[in-house]
């Protein structure tokens, strides 16, 4: 808690920009920084899996240890990222049914591996293939932002998980992903939201508030009514509905919501 993400940003840099453009820019830059960590992990993972596959041979858990230096480096380089790794599709690895090569930064700042009991005989949480961060990239073939949600599998924190599919010879073999705790996301975007003339919030495709300067609509609450998914699917233009102005934040899956008028 309270650890600086270093992303509160240079306060002067956006002062001359239109406040709405500044919000859109900051949201995009923040998520893109995290997606960069996801993409780097994806590149490493793809190369590693390709090298460990072939001639009657398949990748095993031990092969994934080669990812660790990169995962540690990403956690060190991106204060916004609190967890990062590769989640194998069940059946990919030859020696275990499933696996998460996942490393996260603890409250004390130390980086540790996530050790999960993935034996269905012992654990009710052994099937990780139902989480949005896994299903969205698998079903769409594209990168995705899951949450805000309570992550009771890895961190027990409230946050966003950004993920991307990993494929091997055209076959889906898992996802690479990175966690951003909501308090860190808030620290990154709140300064620009506060520069808007009226209370505003960032809302995901399902209406869940991810960050807000409106005390009546705090993070975690739902904004019911507008079809945010349709707004995000359409052209990046402003929508007006039910006394609200809705503006997609570039190609991110978040909508800026402000009171109209």
């Amino acid at each position, binding site marked *: 808690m309270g650890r600086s993400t270093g992303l509160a940003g240079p306060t002067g840099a956006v002062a001359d920009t239109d406040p709405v453009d500044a919000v859109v820019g900051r949201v995009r830059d923040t998520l893109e920084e995290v997606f960069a960590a996801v993409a780097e992990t994806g590149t490493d993972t793809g190369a590693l899996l390709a090298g460990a596959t072939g001639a009657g041979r398949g990748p095993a858990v031990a092969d994934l240890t080669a990812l660790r230096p990169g995962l540690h480096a990403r956690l060190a380089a991106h204060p916004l990222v609190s967890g990062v790794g590769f989640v194998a599709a069940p059946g990919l690895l030859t020696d275990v049914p499933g696996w998460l090569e996942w490393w996260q930064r603890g409250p004390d700042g130390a980086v540790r591996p996530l050790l999960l009991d993935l034996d269905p*005989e*012992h654990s009710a949480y052994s099937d990780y293939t*139902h989480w949005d961060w896994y299903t969205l990239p698998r079903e769409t073939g594209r990168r995705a932002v899951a949450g*805000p949600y309570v992550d009771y599998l890895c961190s027990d*924190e409230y946050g966003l998980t950004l993920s991307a599919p990993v494929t091997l010879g055209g076959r889906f073999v898992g996802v690479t992903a990175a966690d951003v705790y909501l308090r860190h996301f808030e620290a990154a975007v709140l300064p620009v939201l506060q520069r808007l003339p009226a209370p505003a919030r960032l809302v995901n495709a399902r209406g869940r508030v991810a960050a807000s300067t409106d005390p009546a609509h705090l993070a*975690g609450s*739902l904004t019911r009514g507008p079809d945010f998914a349709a707004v995000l699917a359409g052209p990046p233009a402003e929508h007006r509905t039910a006394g609200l102005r809705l503006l997609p934040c570039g190609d991110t899956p978040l909508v800026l919501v402000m009171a109209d008028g």
Partner: protein
Amino acid sequence: MRPNGRPDEAGGAAGTGAARRAVFTPVDTRARVDTVVRRIGDAIELGLLADGEQLPGETELAGQLGVSTVTLREALMALRQQGLVTTRRGRGGGSFVTLPDDPPQERLRARLAGWSTEELRDLGDHWAAVSGAAALLAARRTQPGDLRPLIRTVEELSAAGDPATRSRLYGRFHVELAAAAQSARLTREEIALQTDLGALLCLVLDDPVHLGNVSDRHRAVISAVQDEADERARTLAETCVRESVGRLIALRLGTPGRATEPEEDTHGQEHRARGPHGGRR
């Protein structure tokens, strides 16, 4: 009065709620022994420690648990009396996990005897407060996608074949409910509660009638959350928790179960007949 009751049993184990108050009082060795017995016993019942597995050496284990070797030896003695640990001397000796031939339900009842009714009542109050609040907030903050895990869990729960699996799914439902409330703190609280509840819930979920009731009540919680009926969701979640803990307390007392589910009666009689070694000491 329980036939096998001993006056010191009811107040023997300090609940976690008493932990802070207990810091500046003389160390209650008895409570530490009970805590160690409960922790290791639960792990064995839940299959986290396997039959035949060797426990670490006494000094190492005492160090890991943060207790003295004297306390650990007392705890191991209690576990031996319950038949959950066997100690072999000499070369290749040590303490080994053993699952006695008693049916698992009998052993779980012995574990239940390690809880006072007051501790169980307080555990139920805590759990009801957390799950009730979680249900209320989930009803205010849920959109359809959030309910999928809960629906899946209830279906798996009603189809699960053994009490240990049912207990894990019961616990998962409440963790998912707290997650649907968008509260990391309530979620962590539910996860912590399951540490105590896991083994105990196996007892009440053995009964197919109660399992059916639990599944139906959880479906009703989902419906209320879906309808955004926050107060109804809270009441239903609290009722669910109180019913299960109420049955545990009835089992602990060896009294007949509630009138709605009378088949509990015979189980109570069996429990009564277990004698003084049924407890954890």
